[in-house]
């Protein structure tokens, strides 16, 4: 069963068609990789799905319900989390506070009571421990290294217990050792039942981690399937090698 379904997505920025009739499915429980050359519209697809920019045409369905026209906070509330390219965190909040911002609470009273409820803090500390960055819990986000920020951003997005997480270049700009850790944590979170859709340029990272791969070229889906199948697809080779 597909958790997220995208049909005929279309977006134009002035004279540039960024996403052109893109369709893809993300199966529940999968780690789906979205790859494609630079400028093929991957990040735009993310922004369209999460409601950051309005789409011109197309349909997005999450858990068989349309989510078209909803704002980012509403889409997040439905269970779709995302991270950004280049790791965006709150620089003047501590790592722990960064983890607490996404936690969901119900009701007005809860909103106006303390930000650091015991059980939320415990859960945040557990997640920081899982990512091996609990030692920086009380450091300001702005003081963290790039790799720590990447891990923090991943951890923070988990705090709202999303079903689907969109990762924009989780391996971008990090060293090989950290790359291993990030891949391993994504895999383990996936085993806990979280579905991932990730954009990535690092091919070995994608091929090792992903269970499905979708290839975008000039805003259009040109191939999808298992990593092995996609790797051998002549259309994909064309797109990447520019034949």
């Amino acid at each position, binding site marked *: 069963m597909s958790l997220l379904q995208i049909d005929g997505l279309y977006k134009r920025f002035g004279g540039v068609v960024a996403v052109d009739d893109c369709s893809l499915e993300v199966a529940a429980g999968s780690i789906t990789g979205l790859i494609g050359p630079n400028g093929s519209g991957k990040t735009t697809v993310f922004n369209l799905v*999460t409601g*950051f920019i309005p789409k011109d045409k197309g349909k997005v369905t999450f858990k068989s319900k349309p989510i078209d026209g909803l*704002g*980012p*906070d509403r889409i*997040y*509330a439905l269970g779709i*989390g*995302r991270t*950004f390219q280049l790791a*965006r*965190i*709150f*620089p*003047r*909040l*501590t790592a722990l*506070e960064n983890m*607490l*911002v*996404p*936690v*969901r*609470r119900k009701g007005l009273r*809860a*909103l*106006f*009571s*303390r*930000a*650091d409820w015991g059980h939320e803090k415990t859960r945040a500390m557990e997640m920081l421990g899982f990512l091996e960055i609990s030692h920086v819990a*009380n450091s*300001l*986000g702005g003081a963290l290294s790039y790799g720590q920020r990447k891990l923090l951003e991943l951890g*923070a*997005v988990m705090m*709202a217990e999303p079903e689907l997480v969109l990762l924009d270049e989780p391996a971008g700009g990090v060293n090989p050792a950290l790359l291993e850790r990030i891949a391993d944590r994504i895999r383990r979170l996936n085993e806990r039942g979280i579905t991932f859709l990730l954009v990535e340029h690092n091919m070995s990272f994608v091929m090792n981690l992903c269970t499905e791969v979708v290839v975008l070229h000039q805003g259009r889906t040109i191939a999808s399937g298992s990593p092995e199948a996609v790797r051998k697809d002549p259309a994909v080779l064309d797109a990447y090698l520019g034949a």
Partner: protein
Amino acid sequence: MRAIPQARFLKVAGLVALFAIALVLPAIAPDPATTNIAVFTVMYIGLATAWNIMGGYTGYISLGHAAFFGFGSYTLALLLAHLHIAAGYTPFLFVPVAGLATAVLALGIGWFALRTRAATFVIVTIAFMFMLQLLAENLVGLTGGGGGMTFPYPRWGGDYFNTPFYYAMLILATLALAVSWRIRRSKFGLGLLAIRDDEDKALAVGVPTRAFKLTAFVVSAAFVGMIGGVYGYYVTYIYPQFVVDPLIGISMVLMVFLGGLGTLSGPVLGALILEPLQLWLAYNYGASRLYLVLYSAVFLGVILLLPRGIVPSLTEAIDRWRARAGPSAPPRVVTP
């Protein structure tokens, strides 16, 4: 781990002492010259604290808060005039009504103004303030236009005259501080700080940014409106340029920047320094507006030397000193 409760004790003790002094001040120094300074200083503590709830926590700099100040002032004047309320203590009971009216206005203004960000937001708030000033001037039938409006004049004698106003201001300032403190450590407040740091990211992790910003804006404006009401009653005569005064709006901002943007004690400290200084200049050098020179000097000084304000810079210096003093000093935990 002993340093933290100790520091906390000192902080609480200091606060209690400060509040106790504020509470008995009119008894210690009853002469009107002193209580007049006290009324205005406490007024600015309230204004700066209220402004900080929006400007400090969310990072949305409003330079038009004087509009809410004037609006609260005019609302109270109109209420008293049309309901034929006599001078005395009763007018104070209508201050919350003026606050409510200001909140409703802020809801409408914020609805539009908060579609913009950064510099655009600043300009929209200024424009809105001048619009309100023009309205007050031109709706002659309602506001008396440039001729202004008069409040009922209480028959409190001599030394006592300022005292009720002082306590009214003190109640509002304390309330504003309590609300600011509660927000600062709440889940809502954490959301506001997240907006200040990165609004789009906040939206991406589910913070309903629009509703949060609007709430902070309305709460902030409501306090400013109530304080404006008490101010009008205190000075007994208001006219458009006098209460919808850009300088009032800029003063509260400057105090917050001097004390420390987004901190709880910063606005209080900023008001405690700047307002008595301004009044001292006015007393000694007449109404020469010399304080404007002082304000620009303070403004330049803050930007150049203390861009984050006194409280954050001081806290950092103490932390550095503690870190040097010994490795056993616990790391500072920044709580919302």
